[in-house]
């Protein structure tokens, strides 16, 4: 390919059809109720999709570029804002990569609190996905229910961190706030409520004959194809691959926690729908364990705590609030590189961080799960009907801002 002569056709799918071509071009998006912040360029032969080109980048926010030009600590809010339904995981993944460079090991209680926040976040993220899938298939009830049921969990996060979505809870060395009083009881009743709701979700959504008709055998990805496309998270496990980063390379407190990784066999939209419900059940189990087994102790590593000045130590003892040592402002880690992998709600976040002794990261690379799930559009949706496109799109829980970064 001669790149110098390359001309980018903005509306490639909308250009003139070659002679004898009976397909029509259909541009779904970027302003379309079923596209999200992206454009899905499709070609249709009758009602059958023959080609899909997912044109992303409409909400590209240059997070890598911004982070490479700021102090290390300032990347925490940046990565959070890219993955709004999954903030804790993005935060955690970045901090894990940074901690490997700084050689800080957080204390066990902080590890447990990180896992706690991450699992609450996973539930909200899956509920978000279920709700969006609901509205894509036309079920406004599930959309409202799932977003309504996110609320108690967001309320828990608010109690824990003081913010609803953008928590900025995890910092190098530990977490910023101790678990407040009354949190356990509140969490337990919220979890029980969610467990009660599963029957209703099954009746009106997962086992609804219309949903079954729409999703069974739609967007089938078998095991080998899922591996070669490199899809992540619940979508991968719905295709029968037994892979979860929490098991494969445990981080935070997952080494000590007993949980199962749900797995499905068919790899169609219906399995991707069910696996999210199963994962919420596992998350509930994990949160119960964490609340039961949480060890006592400090929530910040000693190497950080020892750098606090007397005023800050007093604040920590009174309010259980970790203040930042001046070191956070002037981090200059030695030249090193590290990676971090975290199983977020939608799949695996990958971080690659390279430092060269400067106060800014030298290379800040991160890959979000949605970006890796892009293959679903261009490879999987081909051959299905136009009405199956929302069923596939919704089931993979794709979040355009997250893919664009």
């Amino acid at each position, binding site marked *: 390919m001669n790149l110098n002569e390359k001309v980018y056709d903005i509306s490639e799918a909308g250009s003139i059809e070659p002679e004898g071509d009976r397909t*029509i071009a*259909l541009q*779904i998006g970027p302003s*379309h*109720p*079923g596209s999200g912040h992206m454009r899905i360029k499709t070609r249709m032969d009758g*009602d059958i999709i023959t080609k899909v080109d997912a044109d992303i980048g409409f909400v590209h926010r240059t997070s890598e570029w911004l982070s490479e030009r700021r102090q290390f600590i300032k990347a925490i809010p940046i990565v959070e804002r890219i993955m709004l339904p999954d903030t804790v995981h993005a935060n955690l993944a970045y901090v894990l990569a940074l901690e490997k460079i700084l050689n800080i090991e957080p204390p066990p209680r902080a590890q447990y609190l990180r896992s706690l926040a991450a699992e609450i976040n996973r539930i909200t993220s899956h509920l978000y996905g279920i709700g969006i899938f*609901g*509205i*894509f*298939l*036309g*079920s*406004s*009830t*599930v959309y*409202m*229910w799932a977003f*309504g049921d996110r609320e108690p969990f967001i309320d828990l996060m608010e109690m824990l961190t003081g913010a609803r979505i953008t928590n900025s809870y995890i910092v190098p060395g530990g977490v910023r706030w101790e678990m407040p009083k009354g949190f356990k009881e509140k969490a337990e009743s919220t979890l029980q409520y969610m467990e009660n709701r599963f029957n209703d979700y099954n009746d*009106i959504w997962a086992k*609804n004959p*219309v*949903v079954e*008709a*729409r999703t069974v055998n739609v967007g089938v990805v078998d095991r080998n194809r899922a591996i070669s496309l490199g899809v992540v998270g619940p979508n991968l496990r719905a295709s029968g691959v037994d892979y979860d980063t929490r098991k494969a390379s445990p981080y935070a407190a997952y080494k000590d926690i007993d949980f199962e990784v749900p797995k499905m066999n068919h790899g169609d939209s219906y399995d991707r729908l069910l696996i999210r419900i199963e994962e919420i059940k596992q998350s509930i189990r994990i949160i119960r364990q964490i609340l039961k087994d949480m060890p006592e102790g400090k929530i910040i590593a000693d190497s950080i705590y020892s750098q606090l000045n007397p005023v800050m130590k007093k604040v920590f003892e009174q309010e259980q609030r970790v203040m930042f040592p001046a070191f956070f402002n002037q981090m200059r880690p030695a030249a090193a590189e590290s990676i971090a992998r975290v199983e977020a709600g939608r799949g695996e976040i990958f971080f690659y961080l390279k430092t060269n002794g400067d106060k800014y990261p030298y290379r800040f690379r991160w890959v979000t799960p949605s970006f890796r799930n892009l293959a679903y559009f261009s490879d999987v949706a081909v051959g299905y*009907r*136009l*009405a*199956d*496109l*929302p069923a596939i799109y*919704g089931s993979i829980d794709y979040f355009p801002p997250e893919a664009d970064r």
Partner: protein
Amino acid sequence: MGILLLIIWLIQDLLYLIVFPGLVVAMVLVILLIYLERKIAAKVQMRYGPLYVSRKVGGALQSVSDLLRFSFQEFILPIGSDSIAFLMAPGFMFAFAMMPLIFIPVGPYYSYLFPSTLTILFSVALITITPIYAIIVGWASDNKFSFIGSLREAFLVISYEIPLLLSVIAMVIVYRTLNYIPAVAFQETHLPGIILNPIAALVFIIVAIRSTGRFPFDITEADSELIMGLYTEYSALFFGIGMATPYIELYALSLIFSLLFLGGWWPVSIHATGLLAGLFLPGIIVIIKAFIVMMVLVFLRAVYPRYRVDQAVRSGWERIIYLGIIAVIISILEVIII
């Protein structure tokens, strides 16, 4: 003397067409129904629904304010559209959706502009005209999404019209008449149609859901695929008309359902006389029955997602049509036995 009678007759007909159960009542019911649809969905979905327009009456004027908004909105005519068809099709759609009301008596003493003993046949025949204009709407818009919407409408109309006719034929066989008033009289002396032939009632309800685009057959307007389906390019009052047409259709079908299956103005006797019992009470009863049917049908929005078009067409040809044939057979057996 004859001229005076003719004038009274005409005024009566005009009142019948415009006020009750025609345009005015239909529009009021539709506005009320749209409000209730949103409220019902909101109840199931754990939220308030329309509230801020006229908060004291629970947001009941929301639909009125929507109508006003549609009326004063800017109308946009797309450049590529077939402008005459684009402008006229919604009007025709609305008119043909209203037309079955001419032939639907809401009481035993209602006379018609076109006196006929074939009212069932006429009303059902007129109902099947509206989709033709829906197809024209999609064609004239010069938009791929509208066009796909109208293609879907065409597919679905063909696959669901026959079951509709079959279910009506089943009832006509039982009642041995093509006129609504003897049909209601038959139900008064025997049993309501829904007990006489429940399969026909089921088929009629499914077809009513389908032809008015209620969930789970909200296929031509599937917003996650087709934006607004047929009405993607419409704005202002034309869009409002397009929105209201399925509800008018729903009203007509619900009236037919309550006359054919729910015993019409039962418990008021067909032989009742006087202004109240003979004229107003039957109408009110029929409309209340029809309104309950409408509410049940709009409640489905809160329960179901939507089917895919090929699934809906397939179920039309593979399931509903057989149900319709079964309904006809049941009716024939009943007639033979009785």
